[in-house]
Each structure stands twice: as structure tokens, then as C-alpha cells.
């Protein structure tokens, strides 16, 4: 028989400090993403390979300097990979394994459950962008520093919008279906959604992928503020997806 000293479990309840909860939750989310081999392939290896390919080969017509335009588009792809596809798949399987229920039974407030995931995703995106930017600089990219604040804002906006779309998908369907759909949508957006190349079809500009790629191209290549149109498109998708996700997301 296992015995415990009297008083071992004497109640002393209370909620932990909010900053610490947020920090530990975000760190856990980021760490689990970075530890997952498939996630690294999707979020790091494929974007890096495409950055190199688009910069040195002229398979796809792209405005010169090629490396600048390629960098902007691969930034957009990296954000979509991580915030949308990666987040959706992770959420689908987290629900399957009951972690949302587990955490929402703890003292973690519900809003922090979302905030922790968002911060974790932002950390991963920041690491991706740094890695891609360093590679792009090596490939000869010259970044007009005047675009830096805009690029940072667009990266955050893009992560939030695609994060909301990822949660909308991953929070409602079965894990296997999420896995399949998230990858298919990623591929479609890359090829014909205005990411790898500009598609001169009207409705494509209304896709969040095209809007993000176009806005980033303006700020990354020309160092100027993005157009109002693409930013409005991104915000609209983010708000609609977020509002829907709060209604459709299930804990298990």
C-alpha cells in the first residue's frame, strides 16, 4: 500500500498567473510544432526548397528581381503552411486526443486557450520567416528597410487570418478529414490561389492567399505600404472565419 504524509493533498486551490499560463501554453504549442517532423517538412523544408527553386530557375514568369518577388510569395506560403494547414491538422488531432477538454477543465481561461495557440503559431511563423529571410539574403535579395513595419504587420495579420481559417477547419471535422482537406487546400492555394504566381482571374484576388501574397510583394519588393484592397480582403476573411469558428469549434 502506498501511503502519503498527512496534508500532502490539503486543498490550496487558485489560478496561476496569467502571463505565466500564456507563456507556458504558447511555448508548449510552439515546441510541439517544431518537434513534429511532418510539420517541419510542411512549414520549413518545402518553403525553403521552393524559395531556392523560384529564385534561381525561371520556370515561372516573375517580375525581376526574381528573388525579391519569390521571397514575398514564399513568406505568404510559409504563413499559410503554418497558420492554416499546420494549425488545422494539429487542432484536429488535439481534439481527437482530448487535450482541449483536458485544458478547458483546468484553470486556464477559455480566451487564453486561444491566445496561447495564436502566440505559439506566431513564434513558429517568426522562426520560419527569419530562416527564409536569411536564405533569401544569401540568394541576393535586397530588402528595402522602409517596408519592414509593413511586412511585420502583414505577417501578423496573415497569421491571424489563416489561423482563424485553420481553426474553422480543424475545430469542426474529424481528424482524418481535416488532414486531407488541409493539405489539398494548401496545394490548391499554392498553385492557383495566387501564391506561386499571380493568376489574372478576377475572383482569385478575393482569396486570402492571393491578397496576402500581393500585399507582401508590395512591401517586400518595393518597401511601400500594401494596397487597401488586399488588406481588406485579409481582414474580411479573418473576421468571418473567426466568428464562424467560435460557433463551430468543438472540444472533442
Amino acid at each position: 500500500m502506498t501511503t502519503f504524509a498527512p496534508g500532502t493533498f490539503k486543498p490550496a486551490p487558485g489560478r496561476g498567473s496569467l502571463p505565466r499560463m500564456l507563456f507556458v501554453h504558447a511555448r508548449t504549442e510552439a515546441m510541439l510544432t517544431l518537434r513534429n517532423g511532418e510539420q517541419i517538412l510542411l512549414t520549413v523544408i518545402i518553403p525553403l526548397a521552393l524559395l531556392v527553386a523560384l529564385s534561381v530557375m525561371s520556370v515561372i514568369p516573375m517580375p525581376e528581381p526574381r528573388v525579391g518577388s519569390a521571397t514575398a510569395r514564399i513568406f505568404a506560403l510559409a504563413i499559410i503552411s503554418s497558420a492554416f494547414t499546420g494549425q488545422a491538422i494539429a487542432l484536429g488531432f488535439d481534439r481527437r486526443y482530448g487535450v482541449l477538454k483536458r485544458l478547458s477543465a483546468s484553470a486556464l481561461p477559455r480566451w487564453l486557450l486561444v491566445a496561447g495557440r495564436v502566440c505559439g503559431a506566431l513564434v513558429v511563423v517568426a522562426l520560419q520567416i527569419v530562416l527564409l529571410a536569411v536564405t533569401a539574403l544569401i540568394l541576393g535579395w535586397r530588402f528595402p528597410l522602409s517596408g519592414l513595419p509593413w511586412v511585420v504587420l502583414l505577417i501578423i495579420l496573415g497569421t491571424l487570418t489563416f489561423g482563424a481559417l485553420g481553426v474553422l477547419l480543424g475545430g469542426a471535422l474529424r481528424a482524418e478529414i481535416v488532414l486531407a482537406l488541409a493539405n489539398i487546400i494548401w496545394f490548391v492555394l499554392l498553385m492557383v490561389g495566387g501564391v506561386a504566381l499571380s493568376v489574372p482571374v478576377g475572383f482569385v484576388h478575393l482569396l486570402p492567399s492571393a491578397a496576402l501574397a500581393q500585399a507582401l510583394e508590395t512591401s517586400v519588393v518595393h518597401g511601400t505600404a500594401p494596397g487597401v484592397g488586399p488588406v481588406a480582403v485579409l481582414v474580411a476573411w479573418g473576421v468571418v472565419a473567426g466568428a464562424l469558428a467560435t460557433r463551430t469549434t468543438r472540444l472533442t
Partner: protein
Amino acid sequence: MTQLRADRPVRLGCVLVSPNPQPAVEVSGLVKRYGSKTAVDGLDLVQQPGTVLALLGPNGAGKTTTVEICEGFRSADAGSVRVLGLEAGSEALRPRIGVMPQGGGGYPGIRAEEMLNLVAACAANPLDPKWLIEVLGLGGAVRTPYKRLSGGQQQRLSLACALIGRPELVFLDEPTAGMDPQARRLVWDLVGALREDGVAVLLTTHLMDEAEALADDVVIIDEGRVVAQGSPAELTANRADDQQLRFRARPGLDTSLLSAALPEGLKVREATRGGYVVEGLIDPQVVSTVTSWCAQQGVLAEELTVAKRSLEDVFLELTGRELRS
């Protein structure tokens, strides 16, 4: 209990113990429907603070639904549920309760210690995660991702997550499901220690021995309704003539002669192959009648025992013996 009387001066200490402490859990008239099916149908229960209450019932009786409403995971269709004096599901309640959901829960790729550290960070005065990991025998699996832990290991981690925040009240939904006998024994010891330290425990189980061993009070529910409640002793020994004499002998003996020899009101049956049961008021005369009947039959009565009925008998009596779909 000290009685306060007006004619005698009484020195009062600075600590006043309320004669009627707030219940840990108070459920009244709880109703929950899923579509056309009524899972919980007017359920009432009260759990006193610092006690262990077992919600016992067959699969599908409404145990998990009831517990999940208390935990705030589901909303009630009717009735009221107050936990530690607060409305079930309120934000203020969650730091004060510990929850072990059925089947556990964790990130598929997380390690046991990381998961426990995360839940510990949500509490103001957590227990030491490293110590708790060792206590629960997960020390050998600290680097194993959650999805590769066995069912019993996942359950133990989930129990650790429920206890880490030093709660006042713990909900354990089938805490020993999927555990080996050693781990089960450990959980029993833990529940005993919690109770000693004044933590209220509400657990669900369909294991009679678990309820009998752990609970101060047992609430037997079936089809969403309370069918019996009381302490294990009250439930098993509420009638003097409700005893059993059990023995083993050669299967297929003709018990009609024994029936005739026994006093009025006693019933004999071969409950299992070669396992005979005499039910009613068992006195020394009855034992003697049984043994002499066995001698006449030329058989030896083995494992002859006289016992009050077990919780299992009560349970099967109340919820039926047939297997349900």
C-alpha cells in the same frame, strides 16, 4: 457535539464551525436530453464536503453526463447544479476543482512531464510535478509521447492533471478503467489520502468493489434516475433476513429435498455451476441442515460461507441481471 446552553457561560473559540456546511455538490431535478433520448431524468444528489461519493451504474446510466454537467462541460436542460456553492461551469469554480475526464486527454506528441507542467502552470500552488510523476509510476515513461502511452498510463497522467492544482473537489470519471491491478490499488490509496486531507471526491464507476472500498456514500443510478443511495453498509445490510449462505459442491444436485428440509422463507438455488446459494435468515440451524443434506448426498460442501449480500447483489437487483445493448 458540544451543546450551547443559555444557562451556562460558554467560551467560544475564534473558529466557528458551521453546523450546516455547504455541500460540495448539490444536484436537484437534473434533466438532460440528447434528441429524443433522456440521459438524465430528474436526478437529485448531495455530496458533503470532504467525502467520497461514488456514482454507480451500468453503462449508459447517465453517470458521465451527470459528472460532465457538474464539471461545466455540458449544460442541463432542467434542474439546478451547484458545485462548492457556485453555479456549475462558472469560471471562478475551475481553479477549485480537479477533473479527470473519461479516457484522459493530452497533446498527441507531448511527453508526460510536459503535459503535467502545463497543467501545473495553471495553478497557484501546484504539487511538484516530478514527485507526482514518480508517485503515479510514470517515471519510466517521461519521454514517451502521449499517443504512445498505454491506456492505463494515459489514465494515470490524467489523474495527475486532476490533482496537481490542489483542488477542493475532484471529479474522477471511471478513474481505474484500463488500469492493471497495481495501478488500481494505487488509485484507491490516492483517493483515501485525498479524503484524509479533506478533499471531496466524486467518482463514477461500474465496479462494485471500487465503490464499496472507497465511498462514504454510493448513489446507484440507472436510466438517468437514482435507484438507491446510502453508505455501502446501509445499502448492503438494510434487512436482517437478507443474508446468504454460499457453498460449492458437485454440480447438478437435486435441491428440492434441501428446500423441503429448510425453514419457510429460505430459497435455494444453484447460482453458478456447482455454486449453491441459500438466501434468507441464516442461523446455525440452517447451516447444520445444509451440511447434513450434503452428507446425505455424499458430497463435501466446500467454501461454505455466510455473508450479507454484496453491493453487487444490490446493484444487480436494482438494475436487472440481463445484459443490455
